[in-house]
């Protein structure tokens, strides 16, 4: 059983970490949240369908991060939504890495579930169906919310990169 667990760690640790990193925006806390999710995976490995480990793990990681956010009792969404666009000046002529760094902050500044949707679909490249399963949303909801999230990002990008 330990062998298959090691395989899961190898395959999913980066994706789970990415989800936690974007949602929590704090490396130490993201590390703790990812570790917690994998402890749950280890303790529940007999009860999880091996075919569904990835969506299960992403869901558990995300839920753990959201719990942590609630515990923080901060209005992170509001603050960071503004920080993302305000901190950075015009991006015209900016390099790809600068654009990427800006975009990461912009994604981190989105509200839930938009942020998780963009991270899971556009960053982690999970399929629409997988994302729907992870977030317990219908396929239509996933597409609609994702369109809204992308529109927000697009408009912010257009503002800083005319």
């Amino acid at each position: 059983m330990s062998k298959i667990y090691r395989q899961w760690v190898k395959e999913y640790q980066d994706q789970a970490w990415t989800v936690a990193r974007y949602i929590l925006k704090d490396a130490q806390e993201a590390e703790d949240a990812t570790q917690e999710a994998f402890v749950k995976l280890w303790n529940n490995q007999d009860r999880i369908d091996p075919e569904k480990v990835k969506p299960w793990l992403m869901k558990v990681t995300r839920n753990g991060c959201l719990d942590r956010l609630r515990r923080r009792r901060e209005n992170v969404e509001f603050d960071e939504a503004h920080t993302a666009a305000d901190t950075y000046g015009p991006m015209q002529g900016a390099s790809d890495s600068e654009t990427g760094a800006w975009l990461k902050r912009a994604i981190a500044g989105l509200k839930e579930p938009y942020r998780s949707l963009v991270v899971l679909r556009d960053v982690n490249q999970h399929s629409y169906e997988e994302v729907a399963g992870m977030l317990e949303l219908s396929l239509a909801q996933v597409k609609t919310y994702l369109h809204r999230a992308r529109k927000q990002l697009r408009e912010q990008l257009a503002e800083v990169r005319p």
Partner: protein
Amino acid sequence: MNKYDEKWEERINALLDGDLSNEDAEMLKAEASDDRELARAIIEAYQLQKAMDTIHVERAPDSLRKKLKAIPRQQRPAFSFNLLQPRWVTALAVVPLVMISVSLMQPDTPSAAEIAKARQDLALAFTYLDKAGQFTGREIESTIGTTMSQAIAGSVIKNIQSQNETSKEKKV
């Protein structure tokens, strides 16, 4: 966001995801040539997609990788009530035997000889119980330490002695 926007978004995203048929894609482009807003939305969507291509899944830090690998060693196996475990098999086998023994030891009017035999058996049983208590004490001692084992074994022996004394008193 109005219905018109939603419809646009759906089609623009389908275009970028490659989910729009050639016919629908051509139709959208034709509409965009007459609608500056739509054209701008499509261009911005392409720019966002290009920007998205620059960000990827992040590599988990080495400290986290080590922690995740260590989880199987750190997590004790959870207690599980598995009826196939030897201790439960033994316990389950003993239950009917005890029930049968108890039912057989219930004669209506036992004779003096039977009572004497029963006392003998009881004394023998106490001897075994005494040994079992000592064995258990040693087991406990090896698991949780001498202090606790002395307390438990002492209690068991005291109890046996008390039972023996009661038995002797009855004989007298």
